[in-house]
């Protein structure tokens, strides 16, 4: 924090240093003492005041800190502009950021005051900053102030003046100066700066050339730009981005490269730059001559870089052929040949197929078959070598990537899966001498085999295939326990199978922490949220929220750090990143989930629920979170690349849909891409909005209904108008989130509860409908007019609606004859949601009414509730209690039926693996067991040791155990609700009789 003038904010640095030291070592009391002494000497120093504010804020005295920092700010304004200095400003900035008074949270305090920049004041301020050498301030001021582009000329003028007297001394300052010029389309001026003395600030010649190339291309000096990019490629032949720019310049395209940093979910086939996928506007002859020269340049690069590590020039060859096809100069044959040439040379690499995926999609079916035949003819598949193994994997991967496996028959698929497993086993000796921590050769084979088995399950619905998909991955992990790709697939497979504890166990071994909580927890969080494992879920949500909250708090300090180190580009980036995280859909939803989970965990105790709600500002802040503005700009930060093919996003699972035999590979691909690109689409937003309403609705339902029932009688039936009004507004939003107006939603609820409308027609949202009915009943209780025709606040009608709907919905799940163990994708998650969601909220309404109507001596106020019970209400409640008891008992019975003795359950599953020797599941599990038994004699070493205890049956036994654990946990929840209902029932009997 030392000033370059030896003065810190106009105060000798030796007097300030001890204060900063004390702050840095968290000795705030000592720091305050020193600062008070400093203020005695410099009572009007804005810097000393700013320091004091900073210390007060660190001591947890935000109000005092704010007041002192505002004082400091005032003094800054009243002083001569030349007292503005970096230290005072940045110190104040820290305080304001930490106090979250700063509009953007991370940049200069005074930059916020946009009025100050609008006219002469702005110029004066900018000039002041410049005189003090604060290039950073000038640039940040332009970037963040609302003046936007209008301020660019001013910033440029200020910087020019500064450069003429002081020049620039840091690459970051130069980069931002060039950016100011670039934003004004002053490319020639920027190029001039770059080629002058200041250009040497960019330490690496390649960086300078890339920047020059970019500026020239923007200035439409395509020939010069392509020459510059040639130079880049000569020194960095693998630089793919520069190659695309090079080709783009030759063809005079505007090159828009894929943006890995935008966070948008791109599909490989869609990620190619749009400019590069169009026909050039140049004449055919010119295109041909330029592409020919590009080809000879690329060939020269290939010759001078013979190492197998430099693939760029070889893929460049393919890109050039692609451009020829696009421009109608050559046929696809050349493209196939280029691809073939590439595979011959690099086909053994793991990424060789995915790296050229976009080009593969341009080939016809015949061309692909030709390509595959050529590759498979180029090596002896029976030999055991790393190269052969790599090529074998590439052959399968090409088929997988292109969705070709969808066209294969069941028998063919089974054969391929078996071949993949066999190939893995045959090649195990290659990995025997590897360090156990190293990736084994051929790991991908098991993932691919598992994927095929899942596809077979989807097609045939034969559970055995799904079990084998699991067994293959478990087998792989028995050999090497670190393969995260297997673990993620298992997390999803076990979740789908209803063995969530096993999914959770594998997830925990992935050690997902810090930023990975934002990008990776989607693999387990959605399943956990629909599970009876409320505590595990609450722990995960808590860890995630802690990470996000902590980061958002510290982000201002980190931005200041970048600012202090004059890393200007990162200052801007950090602000944008904080903004991105703050608007994360997952973060937004987790805030609601966290409260809802607590409510679910404590739903049997009204007092505890009230305390949870009190700590959550009675749900009001969550409602605010879902206002339209904030929902418009949510970000999705999940890394979906790592998800299995059959569940491309957390809301989509192909296995829950029927298998469509008629679909072509490309239809499936498009479907997957569509899902990924629509991750932030309406349904997810609506679900987030709906969740944000629940805590407040629970609060109003339990607090205000009870209030009415207690106070209503003494007020001669006048209802709680405010609460009813708010409930109406929230329920309108709630209904909208299911896709209906409140009136339509009401009539649907009535229709469903009376059996006139089929519940299954509203299937995906059924839990939301149930909660809606519960809240409607609560609203009815505190509303002055009946919210549903035929019911009023003293009528039991709305209770009936809830009871009937709950009964119908639960029964709908229980009458489904499928057993949990043998019917994956089972109804347990739905039942859990029904019981822990709407039924919990309804029981809270009941508890609240009971408390409201109970003649409790202690709570009785003067002229308080009547001793005479509100008999119609009590009777309605009693009837509701009885019907909830019946419903929950039916759930209990169904769950008990699911709990087969372990051996019996095990036999049931093992039976699924006993197909005939030639078809049906069983072949793979048999192969795995046999290979594990022979591995000792054939391979030996550590791999043999790791498979010593392998047994398919042991894995199946663990699945049985995990399903049992899930049922037991769910039963516990039902038990506790039944216990509560029994005690309420007893109280009601005594009140009524």
């Amino acid at each position, binding site marked *: 924090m030392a000033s370059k003038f030896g003065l810190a904010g106009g105060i000798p640095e030796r007097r300030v240093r001890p204060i900063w030291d004390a702050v840095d070592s968290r000795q705030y009391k000592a720091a305050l003492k020193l600062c008070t002494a400093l203020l005695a000497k410099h009572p009007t120093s804005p810097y000393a005041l700013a320091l004091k504010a900073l210390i007060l804020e660190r001591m947890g005295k935000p109000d005092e800190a704010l007041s002192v920092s505002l004082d400091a700010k005032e003094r800054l304004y009243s002083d001569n502009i030349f007292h503005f200095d970096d230290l005072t400003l940045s110190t104040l900035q820290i305080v304001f950021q930490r106090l979250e008074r700063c509009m953007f949270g991370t940049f200069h305090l005074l930059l916020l005051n946009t009025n100050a920049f609008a006219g002469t004041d702005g110029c004066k301020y900018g000039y002041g900053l410049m005189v003090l050498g604060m290039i950073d301030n000038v640039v940040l001021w332009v970037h963040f102030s609302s003046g936007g582009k209008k301020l660019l000329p001013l910033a440029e003028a200020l910087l020019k003046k500064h450069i003429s007297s002081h020049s620039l001394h840091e690459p*970051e300052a130069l980069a931002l100066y060039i950016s100011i010029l670039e934003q004004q389309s002053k490319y020639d001026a920027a190029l001039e700066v770059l080629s002058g003395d200041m250009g040497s600030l960019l*330490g*690496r010649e390649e960086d300078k050339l890339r920047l020059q190339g970019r500026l020239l291309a923007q200035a439409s000096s395509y020939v010069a730009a392509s020459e510059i990019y040639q130079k880049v490629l000569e020194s*960095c032949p*693998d*630089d*793919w*981005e*520069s190659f695309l720019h090079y080709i783009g310049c030759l063809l005079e395209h505007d090159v828009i490269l*894929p943006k*890995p*940093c*935008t*966070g948008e979910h*791109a599909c*490989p086939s869609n*990620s190619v730059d749009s400019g590069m996928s169009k026909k050039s506007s140049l004449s055919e002859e010119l295109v041909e001559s330029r592409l020919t020269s590009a080809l000879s340049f690329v060939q020269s690069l290939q010759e001078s870089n013979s*190492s197998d*590590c430099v*693939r*760029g020039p070889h893929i460049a060859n393919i890109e050039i052929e692609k451009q020829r096809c696009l421009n109608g100069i050559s046929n696809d044959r050349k493209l196939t040949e280029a691809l073939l040439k590439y595979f011959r040379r690099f086909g053994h*690499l*793991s*990424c060789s197929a*995915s*790296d050229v995926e*976009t080009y593969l999609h341009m080939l016809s079916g015949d061309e692909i078959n030709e390509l595959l035949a050529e590759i498979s003819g180029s090596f002896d598949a029976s030999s055991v070598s790393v190269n052969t193994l790599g090529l074998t994997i590439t052959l399968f991967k090409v088929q997988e990537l292109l969705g070709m496996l969808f066209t294969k028959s069941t028998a063919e698929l089974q054969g391929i899966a078996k071949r993949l497993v066999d190939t893995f086993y045959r090649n195990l000796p290659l990995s025997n001498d*590897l*360090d156990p*921590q190293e*990736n084994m050769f051929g790991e991908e084979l098991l993932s691919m085999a598992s994927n095929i088995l899942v596809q077979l399950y989807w097609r045939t619905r034969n559970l055995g295939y799904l079990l084998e998909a699991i067994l293959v991955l478990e087998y792989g992990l028995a050999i090497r326990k*670190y393969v*995260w790709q297997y673990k*993620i697939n298992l997390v999803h497979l076990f979740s789908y199978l209803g063995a969530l504890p096993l999914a959770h166990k594998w997830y925990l071994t*992935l050690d997902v*922490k*810090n*930023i*990975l909580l*934002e*990008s*990776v927890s989607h693999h387990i969080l959605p399943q956990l949220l629909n599970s009876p494992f409320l505590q595990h879920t609450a722990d995960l949500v808590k860890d995630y929220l802690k*990470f996000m909250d902590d*980061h958002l708090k*510290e*982000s201002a300090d*980190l931005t200041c*750090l*970048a600012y202090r*180190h004059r*890393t200007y580009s*990162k200052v801007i*980036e*950090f602000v*944008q*990143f904080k903004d*991105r995280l703050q608007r994360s859909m997952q973060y937004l939803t987790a805030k609601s989930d966290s409260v809802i989970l607590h409510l679910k965990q404590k739903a049997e105790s009204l007092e505890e629920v009230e305390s949870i709600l009190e700590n959550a500002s009675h749900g009001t802040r969550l409602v605010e979170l879902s206002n339209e503005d904030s929902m418009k700009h949510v970000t999705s930060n999940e*890394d979906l*690349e*790592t998800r299995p093919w059959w569940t491309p996003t957390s809301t989509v699972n192909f296995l829950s849909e029927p298998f469509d035999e008629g679909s072509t590979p490309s239809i499936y691909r498009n479907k997957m891409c569509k899902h990924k690109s629509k991750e932030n689409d309406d349904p997810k937003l609506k679900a987030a909005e709906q969740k944000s309403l629940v805590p407040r609705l629970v609060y109003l339902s339990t607090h205000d209904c009870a209030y009415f029932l207690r106070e209503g009688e003494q007020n001669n039936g006048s209802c709680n108008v405010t609460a009813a009004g708010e409930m109406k507004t929230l329920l309108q939003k709630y209904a909208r989130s299911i896709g209906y107006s409140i009136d339509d939603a009401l009539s649907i609820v009535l229709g469903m509860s009376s059996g006139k409308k089929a519940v299954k027609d509203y299937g995906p949202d059924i839990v939301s409908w149930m909660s809606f009915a519960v809240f409607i009943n609560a609203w009815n209780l505190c509303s002055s007019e009946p919210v549903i025709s035929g019911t009023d606040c003293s009528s039991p009608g709305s209770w009936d609606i809830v009871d009937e709907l709950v009964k119908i919905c639960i029964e709908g799940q229980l009458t489904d004859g499928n057993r949990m163990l043998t019917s994956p994708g089972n109804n347990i998650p739905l039942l859990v949601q029904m019981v822990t969601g709407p039924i919990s909220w309804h029981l809270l309404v009941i508890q609240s009414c009971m408390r409201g109507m109970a003649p409790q001596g202690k709570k009785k106020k003067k002229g308080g509730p009547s001793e005479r019970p509100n008999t119609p209400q009590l009777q309605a409640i009693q009837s509701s209690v009885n019907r909830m008891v019946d419903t929950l008992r039916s759930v209990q019975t169904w769950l008990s039926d699911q709990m087969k003795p372990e051996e019996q359950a095990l036999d049931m599953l093992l039976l699924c693996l006993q197909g005939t020797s030639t078809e049906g599941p069983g072949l793979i599990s048999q192969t795995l067991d046999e290979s594990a038994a022979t591995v000792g004699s054939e391979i030996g070493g550590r791999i043999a040791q790791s498979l010593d205890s392998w047994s398919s049956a042991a894995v199946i036994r663990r699945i049985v155990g995990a399903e049992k654990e899930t049922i037991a946990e769910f039963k516990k929840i039902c038990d506790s609700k039944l216990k509560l209902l029994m005690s309420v029932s007893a109280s009601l009997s005594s009140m009524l009789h």
Partner: protein
Amino acid sequence: MTTIRRFCCDDLLRFASVNLDHLTETFNMSFYMTYLARWPDYFHSAVNPAGRVMGYIMGKVEGQGESWHGHVTAVSVASEFRRQKLAKKLMNLLEEISDKMDKAYFVDLFVRASNMPAIRMYEKLGYVVYRRVLRYYSGEEDGLDMRKALSQDVEKKSIIPLKRPITPDELEYD
């Protein structure tokens, strides 16, 4: 086929396939962002044509006098992109920046003494074990401090191995 560029914050949301590897540590945010703020030239990611993060390197430059050196804090490559010398490219870049831009004397790194594949790789890249740091990793496993001299260190003094192991509290920089 690879674009190596400065690491950006958004890469933190896209590096799961690199960091899910059991030997790759996912640090807290202030760790990454401090590196980005202070040593942006020492933090690079390699991306493939589809924009996927293939691997990355993070490091810093520190020290005084003849111990002014580049340091590799982490280098990691996603399994799909291994065995094509990507780590070497990233290491060479960091060495070049340390050597040419910052005129450092050497580059160093720490590696678990049991991580033989990594040690072998660093040896191939010209690093030598300079000293052993006892119980460097969580007070349990020893670390090896490996170094490679740069052009400033004409006599290669910085890489003459120390005869005795040291303890973590004897380290000049952490």
